[in-house]
C-alpha cells in the first residue's frame, strides 16, 4: 500500500550542501519545497555536543555520523573481468548521512577549479595533441572558468571561506596562489593562524622556488556573519574536524550557514528518516511525476512534485537515476549510455619527514589549516616533455593528533610490543606529513552500473563500482612524488618516507571521499547525462546536483565546485526554467 501525499512544487532528495542551497534559493522564489532525507535530523547543540564530541572512537573509528553499509553500500572491483563484491564496511571513502550530509564531517578545503580544468579536452588537445589523451575519456565540462566565477564567489561568501586571494581581476596578489584564475574579490575571511608544520613546509617550498600559500579553509579564522545573516564562531583549532560535527559553529555546513534561515520558512519542509526509493516517471518516461519513499516503519509514500532535484551524495544520485530509469546506463563495451559514465576519484600519495628535535603539537589543528603548493597542479606546469597529463596539489594540512588513527612511526617499526611503543612516543610529536592530492582522469572502463547479484535491504540492486587508477594517473603521481622528495630534502629531518600510489585500487584503507562522475555534465547528450545546468537530458523536470556532474576530477577537493554548480543550477531554475517549466534549457 502506497499512501499518496499532497503535491509539492519541488521535491529535493537529500538535505546536505546542495539540497540546502537549492531549497533556500527556490523557497526565496516562492516555491513550495519539500526535502526528503534518508538519515536523521542533526543540529549543532544536540548532535555535535561540546561535552563529548571530542570522541575519536565513536566518531572517527566507529563513524557515528556516516552512512552505515547496512543501509546502503556498493560492490567494488578493479576491472570488468573481476567479480565485484560488496564493501561490507566502508573504507576507502565514507559517504555521509543525515541532515547536512557529508558537509557535516568534511575538513573544509575549498577550491576553485580552473578554466583549464573545465575546458580540459580542448586545452590538452591544443597544447599537446589528441594522441596524448588517446587512452583517456576526458571531456570538457561545457562551462568556462569565467562563467563559474560568480557562483564560486557566492558559495565562498555563504560559507565564510578563510584564505588569501592570489589573483584579483588579473592582478597577482602577494601571498596567494599565483596559479589560480582571476577572482572578482578576496576571500571573505583572512587565512587561519598557521601551525608549525605548515610553516616549515612553506619555508622549504619557497627555498626551492615553489609558491606556497594558505589553504582556503571552511574553518573560520574569525567570527563571521554570512550574507544570510547567520553568525559563525572563530575556530578553536581543536583537532576534531574531519569525521566530526563542529561544536563551535566554526566549520561551514548546511547547519551553520543555511538551515537557521531555511527552517523558518513556511514554504519549506524536511522529512527525515525517509529514504527515496526511486523517481516516478510519467508514461513514456519523458517527465517525472514525483518520488516514492519509505520511512523507518516501512510505510511507503508517493510524493507528487512538479520538479525533482537529486541532491544526494554523487554516487547515490547516479544509483537513483539507474533505479528510476532516467537516462540509459553506460556500457563500457559499446560506449553507449551515459549514467555511470566517467566515474573518477582522486590519486593521492604521501610523504612523512621524521625529526629528532621538533615538537609539532599535532593535536593543535583544524581540518583545512595548512599550506598548499599548486606549482604542479592541473596544467599549471608544462607537460610537453612529460608522459602524462594532470597534476596534484601538494598539501601540508596536519588535521589532527588523535591517537587511535594518528601515530606516525619510522618505516620498519613493529606494530606492537615495547619497540613499537618507544617508536610511537618518539614519532608522535616530531613527524611532519604532507601529501599530493592528484587529478583523476576518466577512462572507458572506470564506471558505475548496477550489480547483478547483491541487493540492498529493500531488494534493489546495489550499485557496482569498477575502478582502478589509470596508467596516466600513476605516472602523474610518481612525478609528483619525485617533486615531493625535493621538498622533503629541503625540510631536513633525519629521515623521510614516500608512500607512492600503485595500481590496484584498494577499497579498504581510507583514501578520499571525493567520488566524482556517474551523471556528468556536458554539451553532448550522447556523452553526458545532464546539460551544463545539471538538468537531465532525458527527463527535463529532473536536475541532478553534486560531484556526480564532474566529467573528471581535478587535483583539488570537490566541495567548492559542488557548491558553485548548485548555485548555478539554482540560478538557471529561477531565471530560465520556471518561465517554461518542464522544457529543456538546452536543446539536444
Amino acid at each position: 500500500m502506497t499512501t499518496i501525499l499532497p503535491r509539492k512544487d519541488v521535491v529535493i532528495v537529500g538535505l546536505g550542501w546542495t539540497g540546502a542551497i537549492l531549497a533556500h534559493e527556490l523557497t526565496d522564489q516562492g516555491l513550495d519545497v519539500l526535502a526528503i532525507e534518508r538519515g536523521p535530523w542533526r543540529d549543532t547543540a544536540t548532535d555535535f555536543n561540546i561535552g563529548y564530541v571530542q570522541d575519536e572512537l565513536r566518531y572517527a573509528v566507529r563513524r557515528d555520523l556516516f552512512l552505515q553499509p547496512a543501509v546502503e553500500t556498493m560492490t567494488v572491483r578493479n576491472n570488468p573481468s573481476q567479480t565485484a563484491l560488496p564493501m561490507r564496511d566502508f573504507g576507502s571513502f565514507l559517504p555521509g548521512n543525515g541532515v547536512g550530509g557529508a558537509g557535516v564531517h568534511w575538513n573544509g578545503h575549498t577550491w576553485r577549479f580552473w578554466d583549464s580544468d573545465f575546458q580540459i579536452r580542448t586545452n590538452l588537445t591544443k597544447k599537446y595533441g589528441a594522441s596524448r589523451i588517446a587512452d583517456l575519456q576526458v571531456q570538457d565540462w561545457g562551462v568556462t572558468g569565467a562563467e563559474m566565477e560568480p557562483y564560486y564567489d557566492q558559495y565562498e561568501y555563504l560559507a565564510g571561506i578563510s584564505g588569501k586571494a592570489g589573483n584579483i581581476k588579473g592582478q597577482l596578489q602577494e601571498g596567494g596562489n599565483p596559479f589560480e584564475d582571476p577572482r572578482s574579490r578576496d576571500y571573505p575571511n583572512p587565512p587561519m593562524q598557521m601551525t608549525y608544520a605548515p610553516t616549515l613546509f612553506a619555508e622549504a617550498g619557497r627555498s626551492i622556488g615553489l609558491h606556497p600559500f594558505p589553504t582556503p579553509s571552511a574553518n573560520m579564522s574569525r567570527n563571521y556573519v554570512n550574507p544570510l545573516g547567520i553568525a559563525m564562531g572563530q575556530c578553536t583549532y581543536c583537532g576534531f574536524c574531519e569525521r566530526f560535527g563542529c561544536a563551535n559553529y566554526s566549520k561551514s555546513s548546511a547547519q551553520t550557514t543555511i538551515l537557521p534561515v531555511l527552517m523558518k520558512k513556511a514554504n519549506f519542509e524536511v522529512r527525515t528518516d525517509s529514504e527515496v526509493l526511486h523517481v516516478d516517471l510519467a508514461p513514456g518516461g519523458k517527465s517525472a511525476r514525483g518520488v516514492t519513499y519509505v520511512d523507518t516503519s516501512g510505510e511507503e509514500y508517493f510524493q507528487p512534485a512538479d520538479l525533482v532535484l537529486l541532491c544526494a551524495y554523487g554516487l547515490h544520485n547516479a544509483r537513483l537515476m539507474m533505479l528510476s530509469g532516467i537516462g540509459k546506463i553506460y556500457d563500457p563495451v559499446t560506449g553507449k549510455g551515459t549514467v555511470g559514465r566517467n566515474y573518477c576519484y582522486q590519486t593521492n600519495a604521501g610523504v612523512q619527514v621524521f625529526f629528532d628535535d621538533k615538537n609539532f603539537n599535532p593535536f593543535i589543528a583544524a581540518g583545512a589549516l595548512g599550506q598548499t603548493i599548486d606549482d604542479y597542479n592541473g596544467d599549471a606546469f608544462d607537460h610537453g616533455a612529460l608522459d602524462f597529463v594532470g597534476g596534484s596539489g601538494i598539501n601540508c594540512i596536519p588535521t589532527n593528533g588523535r591517537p587511535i588513527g594518528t601515530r606516525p612511526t619510522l618505516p620498519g617499526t613493529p606494530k606492537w610490543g615495547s619497540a613499537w611503543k618507544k617508536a610511537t612516543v618518539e614519532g608522535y610529536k616530531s613527524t611532519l606529513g604532507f601529501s599530493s592530492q592528484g587529478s583523476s582522469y576518466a577512462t572507458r572502463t572506470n564506471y558505475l552500473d548496477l550489480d547483478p547479484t547483491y541487493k540492498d535491504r529493500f531488494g534493489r540492486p546495489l550499485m557496482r563500482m569498477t575502478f582502478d587508477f589509470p596508467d596516466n594517473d600513476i605516472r602523474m603521481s610518481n612525478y609528483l612524488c619525485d617533486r615531493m622528495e625535493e621538498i622533503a630534502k629541503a625540510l631536513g629531518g633525519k629521515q623521510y618516507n614516500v608512500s607512492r600510489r600503485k595500481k590496484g585500487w584498494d577499497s579498504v584503507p581510507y583514501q578520499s571521499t571525493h567520488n566524482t562522475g556517474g551523471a556528468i555534465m556536458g554539451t553532448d547528450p550522447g556523452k553526458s547525462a545532464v546539460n551544463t545546468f545539471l538538468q537531465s537530458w532525458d527527463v527535463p523536470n529532473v536536475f541532478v546536483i553534486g560531484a556526480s556532474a564532474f566529467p573528471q576530477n581535478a587535483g583539488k577537493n570537490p566541495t567548492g565546485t559542488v557548491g558553485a554548480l548548485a548555485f548555478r543550477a539554482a540560478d538557471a531554475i529561477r531565471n530560465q526554467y520556471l518561465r517554461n517549466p518542464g522544457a529543456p534549457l538546452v536543446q539536444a
Partner: protein
Amino acid sequence: MSHRYPVRMNRRLFLSSVAMLTVTATSPSFARSLSGSLPWAPMASDPPMQVLPGGWQFFTPQEAALVEAIVDRIIPADDLSIGGKEAGCAVYIDRQLTGAFGTSSRLYTQGPFLPALPTQGYQGEANPAQRYRTGLAAIDSFLKQRDGKSFAELQPTEQDAFLTAMEAGKVELPNGVKSSGFFGLLLQNTMEGFFADPVYGGNKDMVSWRMLGFPGARYDYRDHVSKHNQPYPQPPVSIEGRPEWLRKGA
C-alpha cells in the same frame, strides 16, 4: 553502543515536541516532518554510555584470561606505560563485542559470501563476536595440543614468538581460523582500547595520552597555535573528566 540509535530516537521522540509530528497518525514511524522552526529540545543529546569495570559481559572467564594475556604482550608494561591488561584493553574489547561492533549490525551482512581479492576487504560471514569466540578457542586448543599449556602459562618470550607467528600467518589454527586475520582484529581492538577515551573502559587514567602528550578532549588551543615548537603545558582531560575530579579526597 548497540542501542544508540533506538535510544536516541525514543528519547528524542519523547522529549522533542517542538514542530514534530509523524507522517501519519497510525504509523509507528520514527520519521519526522520539520517545518517552521529549528527543532530543538533541551537535554536531548546522546552522550556515550560509560563502561564500568567489573564482570565480563561477553567473554567467559577462560576467554578473558587469554585476552588479558594477549593484550599485555601487544602493549607490555615497561618504562613508558602500564600494560594493556591493567589499562583495561580486555574490558574495552569485552564491551565492544556486546554492541554494534561485535554484531556488525551497522555493516552489510547479506550473502553470498565469496572468495575475495585483498582489495575487496573482509568478506567473511562471521561478525567480530563470532570471530573472537572461534578464534580464542582455536588458539587455546592449538597451544594445549602443541605445548600442553594455555597462552597465559607460556613465558613472555614464548608468547611473543607465538603472536609474531600469528601475525605472519604462520600458525595453522584449527576450525579454519586465519591466524593473521584474527591477529589483525586483536591488534586493532587492543590499540582502540589503549588510545580511546577512558569512558570506553580502556586507557586507564588516560595513560596512553599522558605517554604521548595528547591533551585529550580539550577543545580550544587558540592561545597555543602560534607557540611553535613549544610543549603544550596542560595535562589531558577525558570526556568523563579527570581522575582527581572523581576520586573522593583527591
